[in-house]
């Protein structure tokens, strides 16, 4: 979310989910909302069908929402900055921008004008394949609407230019005065249930809880005092998850503790990640299942599931909500927070770290003897200003959207309504750069990855749900019928998809959903580890790997080979068809 933070000063959804039903135009890009966030997808359908909102979908894939769209643009993958600049070009050219708003609330306008000057609709058509007229129509519809909301997800951020893509969208939204108003804003849809909360709480290499920078000595001093452990807090920005693999392979990272994640499956260039985790000196994995990553660990610690513990999650619209314990964890499994507190005490003993006796006075939080999750929440809320006014007691009445700075503050549904978190909103002049890897003769197809409605992330949970697994038992590669024909492929056949980094085998589905020249796969299935193919070229700022675009070639698996494969397929419990 580095792009949003740079433009606005805060990297979160600016508006609320409910406002989707109270706006005039919805622009969805890089989000297959009805699959990735079905309940938000439902809101979009309601807005279109019951409230006459206009929907613009900009996506290379013919996703379900296209059925509801008034305008559907189908750009080539990796051309986001180009078509967004193109829309801005049209809006400037036709004088459709919010002049007052731009003058009062933003800076960097000249830089923007300069940067987009060459992005005429015709040039954008040549780059992205979007017909000039269509782009112009979409730009007008968005700019002229009194209220318009942009929703985006991983299809925008999972590129080597992800940060630029987000900044470009921010340019567009600010130029039209659509940020800080009801039914407007720029809204990233977070994939996992508590991504927002994990960031808020400082599970990031550069920020402490509440996005306070680790490089700020005053911040460090106050945390140092609050925690009272006597350990000097480091002012060096830490390592991002995407750098860890390399650090392990280079021998600089020796011990890794993974809580509830499965990077062997989810990492771009997963084969390298696997090798790293096999190599590392000491690996601890704390999870609810023996995931692909846990199988490589030295120590595995059994954790409680969400149904077995108390706590809070913060959803994609910054709403802090209560998670309640319903049952006891199985066997010896314990809540993650109990394990961490216990381990901290044992580490403190060995490292001669102070553990001031139970707080009580409220000044020092060094003690790790937490009575319950609420005690931890109260401590975190004291240190993260946006959470300061939130308590479990208040959450009983329903979720609260941060910032909520004090006890009687109602929470903040719309960000940046008077001023931007950084003061003035900032325009960036951006140039389009082609994706790090483009199709060529040897690897003629774009590969794009994503989710399907019935599974979640690497599938450790949903694959263990009988129903969900039956309805979607395997990962299929989607390919346009036009492309399949010359390769002699029909639906249900097994193919091999090959990139510069690896190959996977899977059955194909022929569908118009995939644009010609593009194949699509999901990363939920361990039998089809699609991320072995993807590119780990990183966005230089956000360190997000380019999961959405890489070049592959597709081969039909020959009959003889297939016969050899048959027993393996049967073993996997997949019926041959």
């Amino acid at each position: 979310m580095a792009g949003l933070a740079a433009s606005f000063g805060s990297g979160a959804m600016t508006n609320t989910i409910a406002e989707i039903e109270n706006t005039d135009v919805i622009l969805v890009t890089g989000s297959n909302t009805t699959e990735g966030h079905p309940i938000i997808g439902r809101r979009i359908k309601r807005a279109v069908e019951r409230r006459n909102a206009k929907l613009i979908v900009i996506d290379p894939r013919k996703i379900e929402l296209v059925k509801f769209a008034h305008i559907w643009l189908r750009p080539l993958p990796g051309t986001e900055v180009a078509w967004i600049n193109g829309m801005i070009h049209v809006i400037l050219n036709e004088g459709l921008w919010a002049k007052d708003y731009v003058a009062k609330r933003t800076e960097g306008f000249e830089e923007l004008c300069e940067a987009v000057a060459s992005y005429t609709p015709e040039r954008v058509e040549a780059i992205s394949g979007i017909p000039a007229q269509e782009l112009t129509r979409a730009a007008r519809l968005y700019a002229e609407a009194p209220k318009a909301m942009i929703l985006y997800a991983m299809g925008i951020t999972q590129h080597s230019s992800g940060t630029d893509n987000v900044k470009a969208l921010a340019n567009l939204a600010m130029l039209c005065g659509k940020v800080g108003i009801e039914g407007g804003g720029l809204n990233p849809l977070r994939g996992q249930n508590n991504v927002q909360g994990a960031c808020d709480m400082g599970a990031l290499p550069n920020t402490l809880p509440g996005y306070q920078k680790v490089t700020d000595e005053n911040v460090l001093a106050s945390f140092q005092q609050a925690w009272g452990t006597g350990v000097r807090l480091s002012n060096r920005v830490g390592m991002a998850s995407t750098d860890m693999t390399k650090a392990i392979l280079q021998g600089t990272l020796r011990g890794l503790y993974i809580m509830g994640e499965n990077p062997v499956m989810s990492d771009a260039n997963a084969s390298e990640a696997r090798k790293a985790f096999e190599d590392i000196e000491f690996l601890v994995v704390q999870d609810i299942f023996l995931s692909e990553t846990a199988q490589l660990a030295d120590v595995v610690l059994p954790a409680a599931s969400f149904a077995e513990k108390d706590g809070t999650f913060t959803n994609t619209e910054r709403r802090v909500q209560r998670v309640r314990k319903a049952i006891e964890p199985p066997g010896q499994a314990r809540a993650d927070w109990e394990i961490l507190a216990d381990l901290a005490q044992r580490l403190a003993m060995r490292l001669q770290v102070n553990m001031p006796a139970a707080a009580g006075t409220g000044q020092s939080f060094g003690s790790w003897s937490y009575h319950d999750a609420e005690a931890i929440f109260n401590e975190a809320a004291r240190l993260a200003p946006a959470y300061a006014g939130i308590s479990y007691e208040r959450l009983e009445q329903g979720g609260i959207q941060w910032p909520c700075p004090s006890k009687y503050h109602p929470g903040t549904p719309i960000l940046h309504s008077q001023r931007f978190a950084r003061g003035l909103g900032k325009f960036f002049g951006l140039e389009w750069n082609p994706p790090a890897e483009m199709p060529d003769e040897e690897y003629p197809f774009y590969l794009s990855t994503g989710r399907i409605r019935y599974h979640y992330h690497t599938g450790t949970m949903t694959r263990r749900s009988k129903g969900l697994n039956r309805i979607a038992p395997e990962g299929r590669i989607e390919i346009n019928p036009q492309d399949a024909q010359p390769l002699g492929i029909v639906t249900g056949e097994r193919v091999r998809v090959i990139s510069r980094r690896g190959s996977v085998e899977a059955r194909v589905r022929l569908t118009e959903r995939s644009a010609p020249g593009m194949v699509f796969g999901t990363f939920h299935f361990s039998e089809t580890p699609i991320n072995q193919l993807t590119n780990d070229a990183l966005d230089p700022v956000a360190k997000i790997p380019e999961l959405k675009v890489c070049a592959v070639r597709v081969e039909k698996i020959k009959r003889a080979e297939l016969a050899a494969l048959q027993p393996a397929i049967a073993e996997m419990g997949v019926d041959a068809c």
Partner: protein
Amino acid sequence: MVTLRTKELRRIHLTLDGKPVLARSGQTILDVARENDVYIPTLCYSDKLRPLGTCRMCLVEIEGTAMPVTSCTTPVSEGMVVHTDTANLDNLRRENLKLILTRHPYNCPSCDINGACELQDLVYRYDISHQDMHAYQIKPADFGETPWATPLITYHPRRCILCGRCVSACTEIAEVGVLAYKGRGSDTIIASTEPNEFGRECISCGECLASCPVDALVEANGQPKGKAWETKKVKTICTYCGTGCELILNVSGNKVTHVSPSRGGVNQGALCAKGRFGYDFINHKDRLRSPMIRRDGYWEEVNWDVALDYVADKFAAIKQREGADALAGLSSARCTNEENYLFQKLFRGVLGTNNVDHCARL
């Protein structure tokens, strides 16, 4: 409450069972009765849906009107005099209920929602026995296996009272609309319309199942739901995507047996397939139950003391040997705020490194 029309709000005076009451224009007789704690039996009515008017259990009499009307679909009007509780109505409702029952099997004890069934409640209230039913000499129509729009749900036409709630839920709540009545007379069933890739397609959200007043729609996982009176309900937040839908875990023993919708939350009570059906990983046999240490390539189950001392020894040794930055932690976007907070506090405040991240980027 789904009102029929909300354009202009006017006050309306009417008499309900002899008492003067105040209502707003657009309300139905049923709405007003419920607001005033007057009981009218209903079966097809759900306050999440627009009134259906199919079951005819909610009949009331209006003075000056020849025939009783269904209160769930009749809007109030000025000066209306309504009777909800007369001998005639009682008789009509009882006969009506018996008619509904001619289709429905009498096997409550073995039914999954025994104790939480709207039909059963009414049968009890109107005290309908086997004798009553024998008088009709009607054998329920025999339906074979009938597929539903999604393989996650099993449909039992024999139990179906054709109230139509599922049909409405699929349109009004799920925003899909693939269900419809099919057939005529006693052969009527609910069936899905033909799917096609870019037409409307069932999304397996289960809104139909959640709205069924009886047990005609059942989760196809074959697991018993547990007895209603032994079930604990815990309101919590879905563990899957970032929408953060509110849902209710139904717990029987130490097992999550079912997910039911809450009334509010960002999802307004609606859920998707993952949220509603994706709970059986919780009690899955593969769950890790004991800490384990790998020794010579084999997993050895150990207790917490052994496991955590081992981890602490190793981490402390690496820190002392190569410095804190040789250690790193990957926290989780699936864990709670409290846990993420503690995780980074552990790495920063105890170990002394900022090498903390989570997989949000992915």
